């Protein structure tokens, strides 16, 4: 069943059109790797879906409801969560307060404070520390935990491993595997192609604001994606209309 459908989505930064007519659909429980070079429009796309960036054209349909005109807090109340690039934690509040804040979405579900602490044991000892004093890995865990506390049906993860030590990245991904098993749909933006493709059942590659390639990961080779990534194969059988 389709959970989220994006139809001909346009998003702009002033005169620059960052996302051009992007269409795709996410099934319930699906995991999608969203890849593409810097400036391809991945972050803007995720922010527009979450309502943090204004939609300038097209539709965003979530569980049959057109949410394109709704505010970000209304969308999080419906079950869309974004872990923003750079984490954007409330640095003057404690880890626990950051997590509790997400209860404002008003969605009951399996993700409670205790559940997050169990899923991210590295946060337990830092419960009462200010978010601004955390290490990168702890911050990322808090940001993911905060998004989970809204009990979302789809979670959009922007640059999860950016700025993290390799060992910490391992741990975050182990936690994401657990999340995937819980049935939440995941859209994962990641620079590390290999890692993203290992995790996701489907890969979407963006190029200059449009989708260059979209297909089951099993049918794509890394080379296919790399070519799409650099714009070397836009008009062949895999390419969306470019």
């Amino acid at each position, binding site marked *: 069943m389709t959970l989220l459908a994006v139809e001909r989505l346009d998003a702009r930064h002033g005169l620059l059109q960052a996302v051009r007519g992007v269409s795709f659909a996410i099934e319930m429980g699906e995991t999608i790797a969203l890849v593409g070079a810097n400036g391809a429009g991945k972050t803007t796309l995720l922010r527009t879906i979450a309502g943090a960036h204004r939609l300038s054209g097209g539709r965003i349909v979530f569980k049959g409801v057109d949410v394109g005109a709704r505010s970000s807090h209304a969308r999080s109340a419906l079950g869309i969560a974004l872990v923003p690039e750079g984490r954007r934690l409330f640095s003057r509040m404690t880890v626990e307060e950051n997590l509790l804040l997400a209860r*404002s979405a008003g969605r009951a579900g399996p993700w409670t404070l205790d559940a997050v602490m169990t899923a991210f044991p590295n946060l337990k000892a830092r419960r009462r520390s200010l978010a601004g004093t955390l290490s990168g890995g702890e911050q990322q865990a808090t940001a993911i935990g905060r998004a989970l506390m809204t009990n979302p049906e789809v979670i959009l993860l922007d640059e999860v491993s950016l700025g993290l030590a390799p060992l910490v990245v391992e741990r975050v991904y182990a936690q994401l595997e657990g999340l995937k098993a819980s049935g939440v749909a995941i859209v994962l933006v990641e620079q590390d192609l290999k890692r993203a493709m290992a995790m996701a059942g489907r890969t979407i590659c963006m190029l200059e604001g449009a989708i260059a390639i979209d297909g089951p990961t099993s049918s794509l080779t890394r080379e296919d994606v790399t070519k799409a990534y650099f714009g070397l194969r836009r008009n062949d059988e895999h390419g969306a209309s470019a």
Partner: protein
Amino acid sequence: MILVNQAIQGILLGGYYALIACGLSFMFSVMRIINLAHGSLAILSAFALYVLADRFDVSPFLGLIVVVPAMALIGWALQRTVLERSARGGLLVPVLSTFGLSIIIDNLLFQQFGADTRSLAPYIGDLSFDSWAITDEIAIGKLAALTLATAIVLLGGIQIFLKRTQLGRMIRATAEDADTVGLVGVNARRVNAIAAAIAMATVAISGAFLAMRATFDPYAGALQLIFAFEASVIGGAGSLWGTLLGGVVLGVAQSLGASVSPQGFFIGGHLAFLVALFARLFFGDFGPRLRRAFLGRAA
């Protein structure tokens, strides 16, 4: 002994300054709005209480039951109609719009009530002059003590509210990053309107104490704004316990200044404000750059 008395009276006076600074400091810390209509709004609530007392025989304390919610409502409406829009234009636009607002409020009050000075003191019976004699030379006014106690309870209550409740967390998070709170389900517009309502509720309370302890007229708001501003800055704008401390420092400085010379009351307060301001500039975030500019490379 005179000095001790001056210090004690200064601390008590500081309670009033902390009370009037509370709303200003809260609004700045949460919404980054410097509300220049703050003093005029306090006078507006003083007049509201005066009308209730004068025409309907309602004691000012009972009158607060009506005036506090009414001012909260005004705060909500102000945020939605004026402040929210002007805050979008940057930090300076709200300064202009609230300045305009203060002129409108002052003159509407003048048109309605004229230039007569009024006070709520006649409506609170003995409380306006009763005191406890501690020694032969030191007496503590009951109203002043009540003012200080109210300031402590109010500031402490808001502090606990911000720390412990979900709404408090929402207000703090919105203050820190209004764009991101939406992503975790917080309606930033609503939160800011609630915060403005809370700020105006405190303004109503400070207006009541202002009118009970002294006299007021339609143009008395500007001076109250200055006191509130000085107390906020001395205490570090945005920190509520700091605001209490700032009020007390201001009160003590004024009171000690007055004991030096009759003109010293205001000068003492302004001096404390300037010292705190420059100390903040020189030892705060801009300190290193300023010290270099003023003292040359040698420093």
